[in-house]
Structures are given as structure tokens and as C-alpha cells.
């Protein structure tokens, strides 16, 4: 193999799955070439075939998949020609893989040691002790503390971030030439994600490993890769260097994708999200011609749907920018951005009356420990302090966002608010009534109706055995909005109109709906009782980006129209930046910082906010960002650190005081609060984390 030969060369690869419905092509005519040391990103929404490509490279298609066409050459050798044994020797030593869910990828009943040392032992035939030495080295490389200890553990004893580091270590053990990363950070928290992303970038440099980085997140690709390949419905629709593609997307889908992504550098008024209409076609229902045709604003009948569209070079130059669009020359890119559908900036300054007021709200869950030790030390009952002294308020028509990573207590708060749990202490006043101690059964229908919720998981939010109309109708009746069947029906239709769903959806079953449509029904259901406030718990995080934008926009439109207060719970600061008026940052059950969106996104920052902001992947090459990587894992809620909960990971930790005392809430302005021991002046000195490059 000479230096010119690409490490991996894929030509016209076609991958199919066989199901009851027949052959389903998952990947069509996929071509890619990857040089040694290069890193290529493969992006696309779920179901576009990007993971299948990785499996195809490994020639691992499971029971029902097959490689039906094209060739894959690795180091010049056609992989199809390899014997089972040769293939086996290639896997794990030459080509390694990192998976989406580290917990699932590790064998639960084997120690980390066993799982690591078997790789070099098998491929290089070295002894166990030598392999063990190698394993320790590599664990240190992936920055896992106390590698010796780590080896003796079982996967479940590690945190998610640690597990993923182990998986990466496992992949790197035999110094592969090519590393396939299949959404390696999707299952992790943002701050942990940032650490892993950085690690991968560093390691690939150190080992000279070529990367194929698969992700749905354009921001991540931007941070890690040299080149990017955008896939849509089984096909590559655009390919090129990061700079070319991000600056000059020349396929309507890529273009649309960028318009869908909220950037933390912009708010809703500056850059409204433009959703892509329609949804991804099912693999066996792909349209003729351009797969994106039915969703494309530039679609031209007779041209776009005539024949298969080939991938053609865009810039004849060396950048290798290619696109799969027949009309790329005709479209005036960047000019005909549709008008923002947003009505003139909402009067966010005119603050309405206070709808919700939370004061020193506390929620503890007792955990019964029945071990002898606990019995002797009389610690039989411990408490999970899910929420500790929450204080904030929300006004009419305002959007308040609660941001935090998993386990920060944001969902618990939602539960208390909704009356599914009652507060341990403190007050929650809603519309003038104290509801903190009122469980859902003690609330009146009108109270219930005026406080409704949109849920996270679209597949879970609707009862599969009740029709769409049934869901909405039930709420209408229950809250006494209407009772006459005809009127109920009429209202159901109106609500479907409101969430932009066809009326005949009323008789459909949730199973027949896509994720975005289900979320729309969820929104219609929440608004059926004319609520004064809607709590939205990560309503779009499980949706694809293009759909996410549409649902986000919809939610905001309806909120504005109805003058509803929106409590938006999210872990995604970009989305929050886009839609929230005020933001509350939570960590381990406590509020770290709260303030208006602008206040949160600019100094002074709470160190945690600062880290969060830095961790957001931003799909905009014109934005620069300070890198702050947090050390350590999220502490357990059962045993939170004393003093400031963030002290174990805080890069700006002062010292003892942080471990001893709860930090005071400092107020740089009225309404902006930072719970930190570091003096305000000190905090003010911080640079802005995100800066738009000039």
C-alpha cells in the first residue's frame, strides 16, 4: 500500500435489509474514500442509513441484512474477498468501532479486564500479563483514573462516561488504522460529551487513526472532522470539506438542516428556525428521483422526479465538494430564505402578572436501606434530595426554561408542579392558589386544565390503544370545556387544526403517526383545556432536527396565540436560548443560576453555566468557543457533595469554603442570581464562552 492509496475506499455500496415487506434498501450507492489519519463525519437524521454504513464496512449485517452491491476496499484489499478468518483478524485490530450505548456494548457479566485483554491476546497472540499492561496504558490514555481498579470492575459499576472511555480504550487497544464511531456521545450528558469529544480528537491525533464519525449532530462533526458526508434516506446528498459544506451548502436538505438548528449564538427573534416540511420517507416508500423532492421548496416536477439523481461535483476544485441535486445551480442559495413566520417580536418586556411562584420548594424522596450496617448506624432511611430550595417565578406569556443535565431534579420539579408528587417543603403558588401540597386528586378540573404538560417521549406520550381524537376528547370532557358530543368533536378538529394536523387524524391510532405528529397531538392535548401554563418536559429532544424545529415553532406559536406561560424543561441550551425568556440552570437539585436568556448567555457566569455553554456543539464554523472540560462524573443524588453541589467538578473551586458552605445567591442584576462563593467581580471577569467570529 503506497501513501496515495486511500485507507478505505467505498464504491457504490448498496446495503439492504430483508423483512416481511421484502427487500428494503437501506443504503444506496454509497461512495466514500478515507485517507489514513483523516476524519470524516457522516451526518443525517435517524433512519438515513448512516449506522448501516458502519456495519457494512465491518461486513456485519446481522441476520436479515446483506451487502447487495458495490465494493469496500480496505488498504487496497477488497473486503468481499476476505475469508471469514481474515475478516475476523481485520475486525478489532485494523478496524475498530465505538458504539452509541456503552452500557449495552459492554458484556455485563465480564470484568473490564477480561473484555480488554482479549483483544490484543486474540489479535497479537501476546500473553495475558502483557495484554494487561497494555490495557492499563490505554486506560490511562483515555484518562480513566486508577486503571488498576478499573480493570477489576464490572461495566455497571462505571458511569456512562467511564464506560464510553472503556469502549474507546477497547477499540484502540490494537492500534487500529480506522476507527468507526457510531454516535459515541448521544447517550451521554452534555458536559460528559464534551470530554469524550475532546478525547477522541486528541487520540486520533496521537495514534494517527482515521475516523469515521457518525452523528446526527452537525455541531459535533464540525468539532471533530475534516470532511463531512450528509446522508438523506439512504443516499449521500452532499459531501465535502467541513468548511465548504457548512459555509456553502449546495443541497436544499443540507441547507434546510442548518436552518432548523437553533444556534446558541442567536435567539428566536434574530434567527427564526425554519423547519423542513413533511417527513423522512419510509425506505420502501421512497419517491422516484430525488428522495428529498416531496419536502423540497425548490422541487420542480418533471425534473427532480424524472430519474435517479447522480452525485455531481459542485466546486470542480480540489475540495471534493459534491452534491446530489439537479437544480443546485438554479437555486439562489441564501437569498430566498423564507420570511420568518414569527409575528413581530413578542412584547417580552411587558411582563405579565405572576402566574407561578415557587418559594423554597423542597422535594425529598426517602430511600430505605435495609442493610445491617444502616440499621446499626441508624441510617435506615436516607433521602434523595431531588429538589432543594427552589425559588423562582414565571409570568403570564413568559417562557421559562429549566436547564440541567440528567439527575438535576428538573423532572421532579415538574412532577410536583403537576401534582403527581407533593412538595416536602416550601410553597408553590399557581394562579393565586397554593398547590405545593395539593396532589392531583385535590385539584379542581379547572385547576387541572389550566396547568398541563407536554411530555418527552413521543412514543410514550399517547396511549397506543386510544385514537388520537379520543385522547383530545377525553381532556375536553374531563376539564369540562365541552360536553355535548358534537361540540367536543368540533373542538377536537379545531385543536387538530391548531397543531396543523389533518382532521382525519382524529380516528387514527398513535401507532400510525410519526414522532413529530405524536408530539403535535401531545401539544393539542395539553392545550385542549385552555391552560394558563404548560410544562414541556424536553418535548423535542427525542425528535429529529428537522422535525424538532417544526414542533418547537408550533409550540411557541400556540403559546403566543393563547398567551400561555411555558415552562420548558431541557438539557439543550441551544434550544433554550432560542425560545426562552428566562432560564434557570439546575445542578443536583439546586438552582445554580437564573436570569434572563441574555444574562445567562453572557458573563458573569456561574462556573457550571460556563461549562455547560462551552459544551454545546455549535454547527457554525463562524463561532468560536472556549473549551472547558469538566473533570469527574456527576455525583450521585443519594450522596450529594456537601457545601456547593458543584464543588467536586468545579474548575474554579476556591477551596474549603465550597465544600463546607452552601454558596450565597449573588445578584448581579435584579432577577439574575448566581449561587457561588466566587465574588461577583471575579465572575464578571470571565470571557464570553461563545463568540461570533467577526
Amino acid at each position, binding site marked *: 500500500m503506497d501513501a496515495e492509496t486511500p485507507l478505505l475506499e467505498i464504491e457504490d455500496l448498496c446495503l439492504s435489509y430483508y423483512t416481511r415487506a421484502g427487500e428494503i434498501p437501506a443504503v444506496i450507492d454509497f461512495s466514500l474514500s478515507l485517507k489514513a489519519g483523516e476524519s470524516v463525519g457522516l451526518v443525517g437524521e435517524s433512519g438515513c442509513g448512516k449506522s448501516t454504513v458502519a456495519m457494512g464496512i465491518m461486513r456485519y449485517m446481522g441476520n436479515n441484512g446483506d451487502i447487495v452491491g458495490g465494493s469496500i476496499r480496505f488498504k487496497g484489499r477488497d473486503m468481499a474477498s476476505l475469508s471469514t478468518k481474515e475478516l475476523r483478524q481485520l475486525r478489532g485490530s485494523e478496524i475498530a468501532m465505538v458504539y452509541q450505548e456503552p452500557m449495552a456494548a459492554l458484556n455485563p457479566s465480564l470484568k473490564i479486564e477480561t473484555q480488554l485483554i482479549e483483544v490484543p491476546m486474540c489479535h497479537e497472540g501476546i500473553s495475558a500479563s502483557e495484554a494487561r499492561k497494555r490495557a492499563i496504558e490505554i486506560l490511562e490514555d483515555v484518562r480513566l483514573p486508577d486503571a488498576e481498579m478499573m480493570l477489576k470492575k464490572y461495566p455497571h459499576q462505571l458511569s456512562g462516561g467511564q464506560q464510553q472511555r472503556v469502549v474507546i480504550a477497547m477499540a484502540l487497544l490494537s492500534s487500529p488504522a480506522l476507527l468507526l464511531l457510531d454516535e459515541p456521545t448521544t447517550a451521554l450528558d452534555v458536559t460528559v460529551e464534551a470530554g469524550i469529544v475532546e478525547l477522541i480528537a486528541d487520540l486520533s491525533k496521537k495514534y494517527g487513526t482515521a475516523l469515521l464519525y457518525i452523528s446526527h449532530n452537525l455541531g459535533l462533526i464540525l468539532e471533530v472532522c475534516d470532511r463531512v458526508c450528509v446522508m438523506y434516506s439512504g443516499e449521500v446528498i452532499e459531501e465535502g470539506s467541513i468548511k465548504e459544506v457548512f459555509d456553502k451548502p449546495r443541497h436544499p436538505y443540507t441547507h434546510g438542516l442548518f436552518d432548523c438548528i437553533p444556534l446558541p449564538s442567536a435567539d428566536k427573534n434574530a434567527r427564526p428556525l425554519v423547519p423542513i416540511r413533511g417527513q423522512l420517507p419510509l425506505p420502501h416508500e421512497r419517491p422516484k428521483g430525488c428522495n428529498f423532492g416531496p419536502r423540497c421548496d425548490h422541487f420542480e416536477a418533471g425534473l427532480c422526479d424524472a430519474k435517479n439523481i447522480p452525485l455531481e461535483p459542485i466546486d470542480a476544485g480540489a475540495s471534493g465538494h459534491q452534491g446530489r441535486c439537479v437544480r443546485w445551480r438554479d437555486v439562489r442559495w441564501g437569498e430566498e430564505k423564507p420570511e420568518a413566520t414569527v409575528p413581530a417580536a413578542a412584547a417580552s418586556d411587558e411582563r405579565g402578572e405572576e402566574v407561578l411562584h415557587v418559594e423554597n420548594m423542597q422535594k425529598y424522596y426517602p430511600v430505605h436501606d435495609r442493610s445491617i450496617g444502616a440499621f446499626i448506624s441508624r441510617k435506615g432511611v436516607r433521602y434523595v434530595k431531588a429538589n432543594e430550595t427552589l425559588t423562582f417565578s414565571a409570568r403570564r406569556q413568559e417562557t421559562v426554561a429549566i436547564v440541567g443535565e440528567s439527575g438535576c431534579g428538573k423532572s421532579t420539579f415538574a412532577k410536583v408542579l403537576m401534582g*403527581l408528587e407533593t412538595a416536602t417543603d416550601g410553597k408553590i403558588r399557581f394562579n393565586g392558589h397554593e398547590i405545593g401540597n395539593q396532589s392531583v386528586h385535590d385539584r379542581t378540573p379547572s385547576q387541572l386544565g389550566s396547568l398541563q404538560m407536554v411530555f418527552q417521549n413521543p412514543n410514550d406520550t399517547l396511549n397506543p390503544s*386510544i385514537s388520537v381524537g379520543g385522547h383530545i376528547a377525553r381532556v375536553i370532557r374531563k376539564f369540562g370545556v365541552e360536553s355535548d358530543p358534537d361540540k367536543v368533536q368540533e373542538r377536537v378538529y379545531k385543536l387538530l387544526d391548531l397543531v396543523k394536523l389533518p382532521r382525519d387524524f382524529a380516528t387514527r391510532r398513535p401507532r400510525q403517526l410519526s414522532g413529530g405528529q405524536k408530539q403535535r397531538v401531545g401539544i393539542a392535548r395539553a392545550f385542549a383545556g385552555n391552560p394558563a401554563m404548560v410544562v414541556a418536559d424536553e418535548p423535542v429532544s427525542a425528535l429529529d432536527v428537522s422535525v424538532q424545529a417544526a414542533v418547537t415553532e408550533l409550540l411557541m406559536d400556540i403559546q403566543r396565540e393563547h398567551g400561555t406561560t411555558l415552562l420548558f424543561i431541557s438539557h439543550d441550551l441551544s434550544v433554550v436560548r432560542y425560545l426562552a425568556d428566562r432560564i434557570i440552570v439546575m445542578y443536583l437539585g439546586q438552582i445554580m443560576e437564573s436570569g434572563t436568556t441574555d444574562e445567562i448567555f453572557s458573563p458573569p457566569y456561574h462556573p457550571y453555566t460556563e461549562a455547560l455553554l462551552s459544551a454545546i456543539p455549535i454547527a457554525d464554523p463562524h463561532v468560536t468557543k472556549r473549551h472547558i472540560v469538566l473533570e469527574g462524573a456527576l455525583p450521585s443524588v443519594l450522596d450529594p457533595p456537601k457545601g456547593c453541589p458543584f464543588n467536586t467538578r468545579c474548575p474554579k473551586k476556591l477551596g474549603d469554603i465550597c465544600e463546607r458552605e452552601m454558596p450565597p445567591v449573588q445578584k448581579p442584576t435584579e432577577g439574575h442570581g448566581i449561587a457561588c462563593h466566587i465574588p461577583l467581580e471575579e465572575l464578571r471577569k470571565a470571557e464570553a464562552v461563545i463568540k461570533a467570529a467577526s
Partner: protein
Amino acid sequence: MTDRSLIPASTYGNALLRALKSFGLLRESIVGMIGAGLILFWIIVAIFAPLIAPYPPNATIAPFVMPWSTGPDGEFFLLGTDMIGRDILSRIIWGSRTVLLYAPLATLAAYVVGIAMGLAAGYLRGRADDILSRIGDIILSFPVLVLYILIIATIGSSGINIVIAITFASAPGIMRIVRGLVLDLRNRDYVAAAQTRGESSWHIMLVEILPNARGPLIVDACLRLGYVIITIGVLGFLGLGLPPPDPDWGGMINETRSMALAFPHMTVFPCIAISSLILGFNLLADGLREISLRD
């Protein structure tokens, strides 16, 4: 509280359509189809027993006639007769009624009780869960057959008593399954949605949770039906079965097995009948599971 208006009228028709469709799904599974075929065969036999059966099931016509031969008075017996002269074929045909009446009845009763207990334990949790689970554990830690024998020996053997005994002994197992499903389903967002609407526990258990647990429950019910058939057979075999003269397959085997050497037909045919029906339910369960795993 009934919620007829909850679901638009047109969905009632859809329900039937859906049922047909899900049956159509079964076509995808060959084993499932064979199972359904076997069961359907016996159901048809049971329904048309009076038309199909050549003789009354209990009529004592001519003892010890071999299969495919004629009795002294010229009657033809396809499967022969037993030791007191009853036509085996007719008894198997009529016996299908017995088994297809009592087995589903017992299973249904067990399900009603088991589901009620499981819903209560899984949804209400707390003390109800503790008590119900404990009761279930106690019953389950008892060999079932012993339980049947003791119950039947105490309250006497009759169809209803067998149903009671089977209900008593199987309900805890069903409760466990339901409880497990409920523990999973109660965390679904749509349950939370119902809770935030202030729905009663009844509504949540019966409308929001139960219908969505039906998949695994239907599979389990099929397996359990097979097992109940075995149980009824075993009871018949031990002489504690359905009271005669109603034909009961297990009882037929019991009555005739000591003659199996000289007159295998008396025993073998009921053995085939009972095994085929159980096989039908087992295959159907397998098919349904296969399909449910696919989707």
C-alpha cells in the same frame, strides 16, 4: 364511568377490522397458523358436535369394538368403542366441548382475578402490593397439583369446582405477570398525562394501562390455556376430573389406559386429541410471540 364517546364511533368498526388484521398478521407465522388451525378445528368440532358425532357420547352400544369395524348390530365405529360400549369418536367429539368450555372458563376466571390483583399491586403499590404479593407468593410456593387435589377433594369434583381451583392456583402467577407489566407501563408518559388530568385510579388502570398490557397477556393466556387443559386432563386422569358421564379426554385416558395393550385405540385417540389441542395453544402462543417481537 363509560367512555363510549371517548372514542369516535367509527373506531368501533375499526376495532373489528384491526382484530381481523392482527389475525391476518398471524399468516406471517407458520407455527402460529398451524396452532390457530388446530384450535379452530377443535372449536368447530365442539360447536357442531351434535351434528358430527355419529352416536350419543354416553350411549353404551357395544363394548370392545376395534376401530374401523362394525359392532354386533351392524353399527360402524370409526375409532372403535370403549369397555362399556361407548363410541370413542363421539366421546372425543363431545369431549372437545367439555375441554373447550372449562379450560377457557377457568383461564378467564383466573385472568379476571389475576388482573385485578396485578393491577392493584402494580399500580397502587404500597401496602396493597405487599399484601397481594405475599398472598401470591404463599400460593405459588405450593405445588399446584397438590393444591388442585386438596381443593377438589374438599369441595368435590365438578366443572365449577375445577374452575374455582384453577382460578385459585393460577391467579397469583397471572398477578405477577400483570404486576410486572403494570410496573413498566405505569411509568409511561400517557399514564402521567392521565394522572395530570386527575383521572381516577380505575380509569388509569382499566383504560390507560390494561389495554396496553394485552400483548404479553394474550401470549401468556394461550400458554396457560394449554396448561389448564393439561391440568384438567391430569385431574381426570387421577379420577378427580369432571364428573361423568360427560366425556372428558383426561378421564377417557384414565378409564382405558389399563387396556392400552389389547385395545390401544381407547387410549391413543384421546391422547392425540388432548395433545393436539395443547399443541395448538402452544404453537399459537409461539406464533403470537414471534409476531409481537417482530413489530
